[in-house]
């Protein structure tokens, strides 16, 4: 009984901040401008399918790069002294204390014409444009979300019982086998929550592409941002479709892990 009472505030919270907004978005998405039932918002939403797939592609690419960068880092972290582990964790976290927009803005300055990167590469005789393209957007996203990949993987890995690793070694496994058959499978829950924590926000992000991308790099989050003020119906429909895509993605992720992704 007691636990039920304790959970009441949370239930109220979820009702007010999750369920009601969700229902409102749902209702808005099925109305036309006059407020009658209509599928028109969805018809409009499909006009943006190009942006949709590009956004999902950018999000997927960013997630993959994050994973490739984060996994070895997390693994190395667990093998360090406790004090260095704390230090590096701290260094990973510090940028997140800074405002998100400032960090993206710093990237604009790094990548712009005659900026540090351009100047350095010009000295080596390499000339190019490093901003205003999809690559710059992906770089920004990876930078933004990398800690969200490292931390869950690291947390899960650091909890792996060293006894298991020693047992594998005692039974004659070499380094690669220990990794492939003990460490990697045990770290999967961390990988899955890392992927979720990077993919979901990056698929719906906005502003990053406005700052780092060119005219063709608009993302679905930007479209929602732009359209919502004048046409909240289409805006709602787009975000509903995006939610469905993300849900499907999470369900697929779930097939790999033990219900880690959604729950």
């Amino acid at each position, binding site marked *: 009984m007691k636990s039920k009472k304790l959970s009441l505030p949370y239930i109220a919270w979820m009702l007010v901040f999750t369920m009601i907004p969700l229902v409102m978005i749902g209702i808005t998405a099925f109305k036309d*401008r006059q407020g009658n039932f209509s599928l028109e918002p969805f018809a*409009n939403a499909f*006009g*943006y399918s*190009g*942006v949709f797939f590009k956004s999902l592609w950018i999000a997927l690419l960013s997630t993959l790069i994050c994973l490739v960068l984060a996994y070895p880092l997390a693994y190395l972290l667990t093998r360090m002294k406790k004090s260095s582990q704390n230090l590096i964790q701290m260094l990973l976290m510090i940028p997140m204390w800074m*405002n998100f*927009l*400032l960090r993206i*803005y710093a990237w*604009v300055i790094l990548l*712009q*014409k*005659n900026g540090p990167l351009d100047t350095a590469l010009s000295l080596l005789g390499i000339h190019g444009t490093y901003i*205003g393209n999809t690559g710059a957007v992906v770089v920004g996203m990876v930078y933004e979300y990398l800690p969200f990949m490292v931390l869950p993987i690291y947390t899960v890995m650091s909890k792996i019982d060293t006894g298991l690793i020693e047992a594998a070694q005692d039974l004659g496994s070499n380094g690669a086998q220990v990794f492939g058959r003990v460490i990697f499978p045990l770290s999967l829950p961390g990988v899955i929550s890392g992927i979720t924590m990077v993919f979901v926000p990056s698929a719906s992000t906005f502003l990053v592409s*406005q*700052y780092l991308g*060119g*005219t063709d790099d*608009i993302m679905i989050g*930007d*479209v929602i941002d*732009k*359209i919502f*003020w*004048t*046409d909240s119906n*289409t805006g709602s429909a787009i975000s509903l479709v995006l939610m469905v895509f993300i849900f499907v993605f999470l369900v697929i992720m779930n097939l790999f892990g033990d219900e880690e992704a959604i729950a």
Partner: protein
Amino acid sequence: MKKILSIILCAAMLCALTTGIAGCSGGGAESKGEVNVYNWGEYIAAGQDGLMDVCEEFEKETGIKVNYTTYETNEELYSMLKQSNVSYDVIVPSEYMISKLIKENMLQELNFDNIPNYANLDERFKTLAGDPEGKYTVCYNWGVTAIVYDKTKVENKPRDWDALWDETLEGEILMFNNSRDAMAIAMQLCGIDPSKCTKEDVDKATEKLKEQKPLLKKYVMDQVFNEMEGSQSAIAPYYAGDIAMMMEENEDLDYCLPESGSNLFYDAFCIPTCSKNKENAEAFINFMHKPEIAAENCKYLRYGTPNTKAIELLDDEIKNSELTFPSEDYLKKCYVFADVDEDVYAYMQEKFVEIQAN
């Protein structure tokens, strides 16, 4: 550097905004000594660069407490008035939002007996489109859109809006990331009067903007400062007052007032129907048009002030700047982009997103 500072300021203002909203909707409204001002972000002299803190000055003089909060777009202002239970006393919408608010009965008629400084205003700015009878508004600032360009990058001196379609500048052109301003420019090039536009006109403008897209570096709003001041791009359309600011930061920049005319925009003080301190609001509006106060705001914003007495107090450099005060002849070629049909406006917005998304 300035840009970074402005971002920090923005962040600070956002904080102020969120706390402010909580403050406004809560108590306060019924107590006599307050005025809830809801203005654009960074749209008032508030002690920057040694200028006066106007709100503080008002509090000192009248004893009325100013609760100052800000918004970033007219639409944000609108949805705040429409959908939340707030009470603002002074708002500063732009021309097209004014006509919409009047149509929807969301503004109160002003009592000009409480605003004696209204007499300081140039007649031209008392009956602008949007509020043609001048019953609901007191113009705060006005300006035109113009072109800013980098002399080291642009060889042919731009004369008109078509300079933004110049193929030799491919990849170096910036464009408004805002449907109204972008569409207005495209319509002018198609020979359409934007203030009377229809959906067909929007379609034509859309085609024109689609033609331009491959030549563009980016659609920008505030980023234009960094792009132009930092010599990152060659040419951009923007608000003339802001161009004056950019030119102070980068000597290579120059401006052009397009020959075919331009959009005359303005923002005006209004009192929404939700106001509970109407007299304080009028006192605030009146204070803002004291010549020395209006001059102070003009020095900070570099947008034109309609207050003729304030203009006399300005330095020659500002007073004679064509960007802040375009000539009478030029203003004859300008139009006010107000009173566009709701449907057409929504269609314009939709089409603009479509241009960017495809």
